[in-house]
């Protein structure tokens, strides 16, 4: 038996980040507590930036060609490389938000996750100034999984990558500093529902394997196009279950139930990380499956995908309108955005892929910035002490007066979510809806445009509260931090504007990425 050749330079981004995750665990064990946080932060930033740059260099130097890097288990093609660059960019900005602390050294995470909420042990941990720096290895492992997810060359690799993404996220969700019961509950819900969806993915894989005799995408395409798939309900049912598992991860209706609860309960920096990066990576995987294996069956499976897309847009938009909690509003808007991206994916054209990829790139950066702002907007008690995040819309009243910079940044981000011209969100929406019109999916584009218009009300409500309402004594204030979140918000804001004014380079990059290997 000959060992398979491994193209190390092609899988370097994945290896770098997962390797840094392992080193990061060792740092927890051997570096003294005082230096730990800064070492972890440096390691995470270097690894993620390095992986992103490496993926970008690969994408440019190999210009439109791909390679199977690990005996067909990993496909490093332009699609995978684009998604890796997008994930690394958003993850890098998200790490800044995750690492930030307020001026008196409080980060967003509980000092000791093992101590029960409200117990003496917790008070002791807080008084001792413990820091849960295990957050960084968890983020690195999740990011490593996200880099491997869209590059998977068979369903087994995809399942393993899915779990490598999910398991650290379940834990990160439960680590909030404040409202810990809520956070633990969100973690548990995410775990049960996430594992349920993974089990569906896996059982679907088993049936696909039974029907086709392989789980490798390249071989599956021959099976799907070569034989008569109409005769094989096992294959259909298996593929449907696989797609359901992925639809759960991207938060598409009717598999979106976990999104608002988990977004609300998780520490906000983690929410930003998973809202942006998980969505990008999971859509990368979904595009791979839909365009390789499902595409030959598009006349049979298409109607179901259309239903999911329309339902996702409508549910996300309408429910976002009624939310009074800023994070829940952003969560439902994330569901609606999943619907908009699906519009591009379901149009079954290369324009649809590149539109969806551009949309994800800009959406990811904007989302990290928006959640970054939420981490800084804090409640204030009667004595003027600054507490936890103020998330109700009521408390955001008058933020434009008290913290004009934060309010302006948030305005920019929600305008991008609404798809106002001169923001990246507009170009993204234009790209996916144009692709849908061009590919006989006009009904999807029309529903999408209607939903964008309706969703704008939810965002305008927030802008009105911030700028056209007087601050009350309950109103939130911007908190001073060590500045990393500020850097993250600035990067996101610049990216949102640049992608809206001068989107050509990234659009070109996305166009070239609409090329799948098998």
């Amino acid at each position, binding site marked *: 038996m000959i060992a398979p050749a491994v193209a190390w330079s092609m899988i370097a981004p994945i290896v770098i980040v997962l390797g840094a995750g392992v080193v990061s665990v060792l740092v927890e064990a051997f570096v003294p507590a005082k230096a730990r946080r800064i070492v972890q932060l440096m390691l995470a930033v270097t690894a993620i930036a390095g992986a992103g740059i490496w993926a970008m260099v690969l994408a440019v130097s190999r210009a439109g060609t791909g390679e199977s890097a690990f005996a067909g288990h990993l496909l490093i093609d332009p699609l995978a490389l684009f998604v890796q660059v997008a994930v690394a960019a958003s993850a890098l900005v998200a790490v800044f938000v995750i690492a930030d602390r307020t001026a008196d050294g409080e980060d967003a995470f509980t000092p000791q*996750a*093992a101590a*029960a*909420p*409200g117990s003496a042990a917790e008070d002791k941990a807080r008084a001792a100034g413990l820091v849960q720096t295990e957050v960084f290895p968890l983020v690195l492992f999740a990011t490593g999984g996200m880099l491997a997810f869209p590059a998977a060359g068979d369903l*087994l690799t995809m*399942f*393993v990558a899915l*779990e490598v993404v999910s*398991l650290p996220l*379940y*834990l990160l969700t*439960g680590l909030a500093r404040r409202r*810990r*019961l*809520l956070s*633990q*509950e*969100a*973690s*548990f*819900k995410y*775990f*049960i529902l996430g*594992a*349920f969806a*993974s*089990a*569906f993915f*896996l*059982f679907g*894989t*088993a*049936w696909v*394997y*039974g029907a086709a*005799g*392989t*789980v490798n995408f390249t071989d599956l395409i021959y099976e799907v196009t070569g034989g008569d798939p109409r005769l094989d309900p096992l294959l259909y049912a298996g593929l449907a279950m696989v797609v359901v598992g992925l639809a759960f991860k991207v938060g598409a209706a009717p598999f979106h139930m976990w999104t*608002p*609860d988990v977004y*609300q*309960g998780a520490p906000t920096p983690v929410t930003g990380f998973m809202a942006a990066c998980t969505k990008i990576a999971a859509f990368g995987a979904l595009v791979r499956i839909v365009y390789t294996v499902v595409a030959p069956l598009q006349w049979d499976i298409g109607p179901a995908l259309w239903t999911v897309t329309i339902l996702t847009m409508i549910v996300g938009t309408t429910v976002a309108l009624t939310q009074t909690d800023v994070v*829940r509003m952003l969560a439902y808007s994330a569901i609606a955005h999943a619907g908009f991206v699906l519009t591009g994916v379901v149009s079954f054209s290369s324009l649809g892929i590149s539109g969806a990829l551009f949309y994800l790139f800009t959406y990811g950066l904007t989302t990290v910035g928006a959640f970054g702002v939420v981490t800084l907007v804090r409640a204030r008690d009667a004595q003027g002490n600054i507490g936890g995040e103020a998330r109700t819309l009521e408390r955001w009243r008058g933020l434009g007066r008290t913290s004009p910079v934060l309010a302006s940044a948030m305005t920019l981000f929600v305008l991008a979510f609404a798809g106002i011209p001169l923001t990246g969100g507009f170009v993204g929406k234009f790209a996916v809806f144009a692709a849908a019109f061009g590919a006989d999916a006009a009904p999807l584009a029309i529903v999408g445009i209607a939903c964008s218009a309706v969703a704008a009300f939810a965002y305008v409500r927030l802008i009105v509260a911030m700028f056209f309402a007087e601050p009350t004594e309950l109103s939130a204030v911007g908190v001073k931090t060590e500045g990393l979140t500020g850097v993250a918000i600035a990067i996101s804001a610049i990216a949102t504007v640049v992608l809206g004014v001068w989107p050509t380079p990234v659009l070109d990059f996305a166009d070239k990425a609409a090329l799948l290997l098998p």
Partner: protein
Amino acid sequence: MTPYIVLSAVLFVIGATTVLVRRGAIVAFMGIELMLNAANLAFVAFARQNGDLNGQVIAFFVMVVAAAEVVVGLAIIVSLFRARRTVSVDDENLLRH
């Protein structure tokens, strides 16, 4: 091989029903394990039917992943229990709006 495949489907449905219906966190968690192992049985049965070893290898991968999932899941359930002294899913209702 069909009986094994039918059995795996039955186990999967039992597991899924357990997750959706039962109230105890641990029991719901057992339901998920049952679903994963039903998939394993299906993989092995199909491997035999297809005369192909890949399905058996996949089952090993799934076992490793399931073990990792148990570690994470039990950690979350134990921390919930320490905070509330109960693991009934009905009591987890802070997030209901």
